[in-house]
Each structure stands twice: as C-alpha cells, then as structure tokens.
C-alpha cells in the first residue's frame, strides 16, 4: 500500500474512532440527528468538502472528538477548514489559542480551545488584546486559563491528525511575540510526539576503518540524525552505488521520525 494512502486511512481511522466518542451523550436531537453549528468539514464517506450552513443544523453523521467542541448542545468545528478545501475568507494563526464561539456563531458565551500548534487557518478573526498579529498571523499572548491547560492532553492529538494532511498552510516566518503561548513550557513539552516523515537512505558497503586499518561493524556504519563519528576514525565509503532513498510518512503516538542510513551489513531504525 502506498504510504500516502496508508496515512490517509490511518487518519480516517483515528477520526472515526474519535467520532464514536463525540456522538455519545449528546442529547437534544431526534432520531439519528446530530446537531452542528457553523461551517465544518463533511466526512469523506458523505461526499467530503465543507458544509456551508452557518447557523444551527443537523446531519445524520457524527462529529469527531478532536476537531469539534460542544457549544450549547451543537458540535462546533475548531479545526482548520482549509485542510478540507474551504476557500472562503480565512485568517492565519500560529499556535494554540482560545476561541470565543459565541462571537462566531452566536449562542451563550462559550470559550473553547484550539490546540493546533503550527501555522493554521480559521474562518474567523480573534477578538481582544490577548492576540497579537505578527507576519500576518495571530499569536495568542494571553495567560492561558487552567481549563485550556487541563484539556490539552485530550485534544493535542489533533496535531498528529493534521500532520499528514496535504494542503496549503499559512507560512509564518516572523519571530513570535515574547509572550506567545507556544513559548510556554506547558505548550512546548509534547504530550504526543508526532512522527515526522522518515527518510531511509540505503547505502551498501560502508566500511569504517580505524586508525590501525581495521574494519569495523562488519562493513556497516549506522549514522543517525545528529550522530557524531568520533575523531581518529577514518570513514571510507567503498564503491558506493547510487543510494536508494525511500520516504515514508508515519503517524503514531510516541514515535518520532528521523533519518536512517543503512549500511550494507545491516540497518537501524529508531529515534534520532
């Protein structure tokens, strides 16, 4: 199975399992109805794309736990709509931030939280002095409420879900404001480590020869990302044919990606 397809299936499975959670205990509906408010993605099984209904409405499919929050009994989408081919007005953000849902879709006052850590879009602008704009993106610089911190482990998995999604994210290259939430220890420490694309470089016949001319490692050297080859060791690459490079994308919890350079005598997969 090609990696991209596999990744898509993994993401779909992750969101589907989250859907089951989100559809439970959400009353005030009739039959199979699920209540939504605001625009949101349509599951691929239901045709995909975006649902453009801005006010309260119902569907007969579930919301998922990572991308939706309960706003007065309606599911409200807090993810990046551009990831789902939304092409309306959009505003760039970087890092996690609160959302005043009532300012977007009405209803009772309700603050929910977006946990997307990198640059992303929403279809609404933030309000208040707790946001600073830099490089055409909004940065949250307020003091995060306790609820924001406490709920993070439950929702931070959204980053793993979005990592493999291919779409045009905002490019934010400016230095963040000093009070940006992304610089706070609570938001720097990852709760979930997202696998980065793994690059495997397979090189046969790499021989490490020490200063006495002895070969090591049965003709193999394993170099990981950030590995240091000690001084006094000569490295000779013996007649290397063109290396084959395969790039895979993985999604997982607690697994990081890295470069794996595999010698002819063996290989090594692991963290780097």
């Amino acid at each position: 199975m090609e990696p991209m397809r596999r990744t898509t299936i993994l993401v779909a499975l992750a969101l589907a399992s989250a859907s089951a959670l989100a559809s439970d205990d959400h009353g005030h509906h009739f039959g199979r109805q699920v209540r939504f408010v605001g625009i949101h993605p349509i599951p691929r099984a239901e045709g995909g794309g975006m649902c453009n209904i801005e006010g309260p409405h119902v569907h007969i499919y579930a919301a998922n736990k990572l991308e939706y929050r309960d706003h007065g009994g309606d599911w409200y989408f807090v993810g990046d709509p551009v990831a789902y081919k939304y092409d309306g007005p959009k505003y760039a953000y970087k890092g996690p931030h609160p959302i005043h849902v009532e300012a977007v879709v009405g209803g009772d006052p309700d603050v929910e939280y977006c946990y997307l850590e990198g640059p992303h879009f929403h279809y609404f602008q933030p309000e208040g002095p707790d946001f600073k704009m830099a490089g055409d993106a909004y940065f949250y610089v307020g003091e995060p409420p306790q609820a924001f911190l406490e709920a993070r482990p439950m929702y931070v998995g959204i980053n793993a879900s979005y990592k493999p999604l291919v779409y045009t994210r905002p490019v934010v290259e400016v230095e963040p404001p000093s009070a940006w939430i992304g610089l706070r220890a609570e938001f720097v420490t990852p709760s979930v480590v997202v696998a980065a694309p793994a690059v495997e470089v397979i090189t046969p016949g790499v021989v490490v020869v020490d200063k006495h001319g002895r070969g090591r490692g049965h003709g193999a050297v394993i170099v990981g990302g950030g590995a240091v080859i000690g001084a006094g060791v000569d490295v000779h690459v013996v007649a290397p044919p063109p290396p084959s490079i395969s790039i895979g994308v993985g999604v997982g919890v607690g697994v990081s990606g890295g470069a794996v350079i595999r010698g002819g005598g063996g290989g090594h997969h692991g963290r780097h």
Partner: protein
Amino acid sequence: MRRALLILLVAACGKGAGGGGARDELIAAWTKGGLAPSAFTAAKDSPVGKDCSAGTVNSIDVLVCSYATADEAKAAQDAGLKWVGDTTGIAQVKGTLLIAAADRKKADPTGTTLNKLVKLAP
C-alpha cells in the same frame, strides 16, 4: 348580523395577512436571492404549528410556520427539527417565522441552499 360578519371577515383577513405577509416576503426574498421556490400551500394538521405552509426550494422540502410571537416560534424549533427527520436540515427562527428545511433528496450536499434559506430571510 351583517356587521358582525363583516368584522369577522376583516379580522380573518388581518390574521392571514400577518402570517401570509411575512411568509410572502420571505419567499420573495428567496427568489430575489437566486433561489427557486415552488408554490407554497397550507400544511394542514402540521405538528410544527397551526399556520404552516409547505413547498420546495431548489428541491429541498421547506416548511414555513408563522406564530404570534418570536418566543412561540422559538419554542417550535424542536418540533421543526423533528419534522426534518433523519436527514440534513435546519429549523431556524426569523422573527415570528420558523423556517424548517429538510434535504431529503440530497440536493444540497454542501448546505449552500440551506444556508441561503436563513441568510436571505428579511
């Protein structure tokens, strides 16, 4: 006797003009906004309200009910959602009108028409 009948007739016309007028304005706004409403006919014995009209807009089933007050209209929202049933739909209040719409034929996969039904309402 004749005078009493006349008063009753005027009162009845007045009531009809209230709900019907707002409903007519709503349907005219939909047409002006590029939607294609069918003729709307009285929906007798509707569980949503006593003064309801049913029709279609761009192949979506639509029920428009008129109430004496906005609070009454709001109180009927759940009945409107029940009328929608197991499909994509809305039941939203605009003034004293309740607009319920159900996409039973899956004619509006992205909800664009459903959204316009509310956004175009005066």
